[in-house]
């Protein structure tokens, strides 16, 4: 297939995934900030939200203060922010339009309808209710697109490249949450813990839609190191780093098989997966959670470049 087509499919999937992730961050942040101060402490969760979205510097270039109004505008609607939810859908639809022929009717319909519906939501939601509806709509649109891809695409390189986009983006998003909130997940002997953080942990789980999953997996009340385990090493958890890399390796292998050739992208993905498979949570804590996450983020970026160089350029 054309490299440009593969590139468009890859980024189309990434942008839709990113839009959903941003919606989850905003939702989780709104819940946290709605709690009485005694339950969450004095932190400014809106600053954290911007950091988790990975756009602190872009945000503070435009706004001096992070509060509900500025952050929701910037992350959801701003045209200045290339990764706002609105822009994610704009770019996704633009990409979709450029590769119409590689999409199934259902996928095109999902993304085009989302784009048409987006115009219905004003840039300044009149109420929290309306904004909450918007966030649910974003998640619904993303699910619909992803579901259409899953159910209607031929299982060929077009599908595999779009899966690569989903999982590269998802791994990046989960890693960013961990990167910003790692201090809350350190084992209990550290002083930062305490009942205060309970709601923070729940918020993290919620932002990767794993709160219920947590209880099914661990059958325990929310413990920070188990939250970290779930998000990093647990292969059952679709948004964990381990699961993302399982998927990345599988899809890259399918492409390599179809094309009869392995390359740097396959090697890079396998190396990261092996590292995740061989890690134990207590070792990660010993060697430093923050360092582990930082090096994962750069590894993941390296995989993105390798995929681009090998197939998309």
């Amino acid at each position, binding site marked *: *297939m*054309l*490299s*440009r*087509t*593969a590139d468009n499919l890859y980024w189309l999937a990434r942008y839709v995934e990113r839009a959903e992730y941003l919606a989850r961050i905003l939702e989780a942040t709104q819940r946290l900030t709605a709690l009485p101060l005694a339950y969450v402490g004095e932190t400014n969760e809106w600053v954290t939200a911007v950091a988790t979205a990975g756009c602190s510097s872009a945000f503070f270039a435009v706004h001096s203060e992070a509060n509900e109004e500025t952050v929701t505008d910037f992350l959801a609607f701003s045209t200045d922010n290339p990764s706002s939810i609105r822009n994610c859908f704009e770019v996704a639809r*633009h990409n979709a*339009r*450029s590769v*119409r*022929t590689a999409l199934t*009717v259902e996928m*095109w*319909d999902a993304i*085009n*309808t989302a784009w*048409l519906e987006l115009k219905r939501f004003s840039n300044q939601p009149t109420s929290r209710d309306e904004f909450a509806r918007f966030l649910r709509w974003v998640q619904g649109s993303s699910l619909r697109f992803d579901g259409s891809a899953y159910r209607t695409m031929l299982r060929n*390189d077009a599908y595999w*490249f779009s899966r690569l986009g989903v999982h590269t983006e998802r791994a990046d998003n989960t890693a960013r949450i961990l990167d910003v909130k790692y201090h809350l997940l350190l084992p209990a002997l550290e002083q930062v813990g305490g009942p205060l953080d309970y709601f923070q942990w729940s918020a993290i789980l919620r932002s990767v839609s794993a709160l219920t999953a947590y209880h099914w997996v661990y059958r325990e009340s929310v413990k920070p190191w188990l939250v970290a385990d779930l998000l990093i090493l647990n292969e059952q958890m679709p948004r964990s780093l381990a699961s993302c890399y399982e998927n990345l390796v599988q899809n890259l292998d399918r*492409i390599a098989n179809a*094309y009869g050739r392995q390359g740097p992208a396959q090697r890079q993905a396998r190396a990261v997966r092996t590292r995740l498979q061989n890690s134990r949570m207590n070792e990660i804590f010993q060697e430093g959670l923050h360092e582990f996450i930082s090096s994962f983020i750069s590894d993941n970026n390296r995989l993105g470049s390798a995929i681009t160089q090998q*197939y*998309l350029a």
Partner: protein
Amino acid sequence: MTTAFDEMKGADGQVRPAYAALASWLEEVRPDVLDHRRQEAEVVFRRIGITFAVYGEAEATERLIPFDVIPRILAAAEWDTLRRGLEQRVKALNLYLKDIYSRREVLRAGIVPDDMVFQNPVFRPEMNGQKVPHDIYVHIAGIDIVRVDADTFYVLEDNARTPSGVSYMLENREIMLRLFPDLFSRHRVAPVENYPDELLASLRSVAPDTAPGEPNVVLLTPGVYNSAYYEHSFLADKLGVELVEGRDLFVKSGIVYMRTTQGPKRVDVIYRRVDDDFLDPLAFRPDTGLGVAGLMSAYQAGNVTLANAVGTGIADDKAIYSYMPEIVKFYLGEEPILKNVPTWRCREPDHLKYVLEHLEELVVKEVHGSGGYGMLIGPMADKAQIAAFRTKLKLDPKGFIAQPTLALSTCPTCVEAGIAPRHVDLRPFVLTGRDKIRIVPGGLTRVALKAGSLVVNSSQGGGTKDTWVLDT
């Protein structure tokens, strides 16, 4: 102006046979049903994204062409005449182009004046003496036809460069089949859905002889911002060929390749929807990013087929148009089956004199304009517009032709006040392959939705209709 011929009611107000079933259906059907179906069609078109862009309108970069749900119907015998006329016309166009870029007998015979060709910006000196695969220049033609009475069809324009609109022909039929199964069951309508297959067969048949094995056909688009982008992606999808942009292609050692996830792949036939000027920055406009550097050299080396060929503008130019009847006779030795609209060439002093004296009743067109831009419709224009055009004409008579204001035929059309006659034209698509000429029965009918308006161009608020050719 004489009253227009109505294709349903005829000249005498009697429903013509081809329209009999439709006329009785229109009497039965409740107006709100038609309106409801129209809205349904619009929702479907919007959702599948059949849009076009209007240049210079920031507001509406993606607009729908209004679709009229009442079909336009042609009887089998009418179509048969059209089909024969179209084949003849396109054969002549191809012979003429081959001649213009080689021996130029048509010029030597004095049929077409030299300067009309050599001083014409659409003439491509790069194509002089250049052999094109299988001597075919116009693989896809969209010949615009208008009708003035029961028996007279005129060719209004020969679109021999990158004619568009075929996606509407196909989508209009699809939507009509969905909305009006009952109406279809009362007619025997010849299908058009095989157009993509016919197009692919034509394109494959013209691959260069050097192409190894199965020829690789691609469709070259200027990209998503082009007004006809929807059509490009639609056709690529139906043809099952890659939709490429200039940046997806490159030329190495005189061969065109496309960049794929598995490395370079050779390209043999390019159905290009990019104008000559933008094809290759090394050969034509250097300031474009739409084309492929070196494409012309690969073309000249005979390693790739461009459909349509470079330089076909010298066949469909409005100035050349008026010579088409003689051109048909010159190459084929036959009388043209389809007539030209009587045309005054303002370059000829006596013609110019006549045109200047009759501006109020003529349509004056810029020779190099298209899409309904830059023309004067005398009977609709006010004094100031006519005066302005008079000045333009005197300054550059060669730049204009004039035609009588035709009473284009009308068809019943849904308008706000119910059903009323509106003026229509027709663009059938003619495919020329190495083996034969293929025409699917039908085409794109464009309709001027404003009462009395003769301008059917979509950029000027025209709409479209499904075109039915009856099988018996």
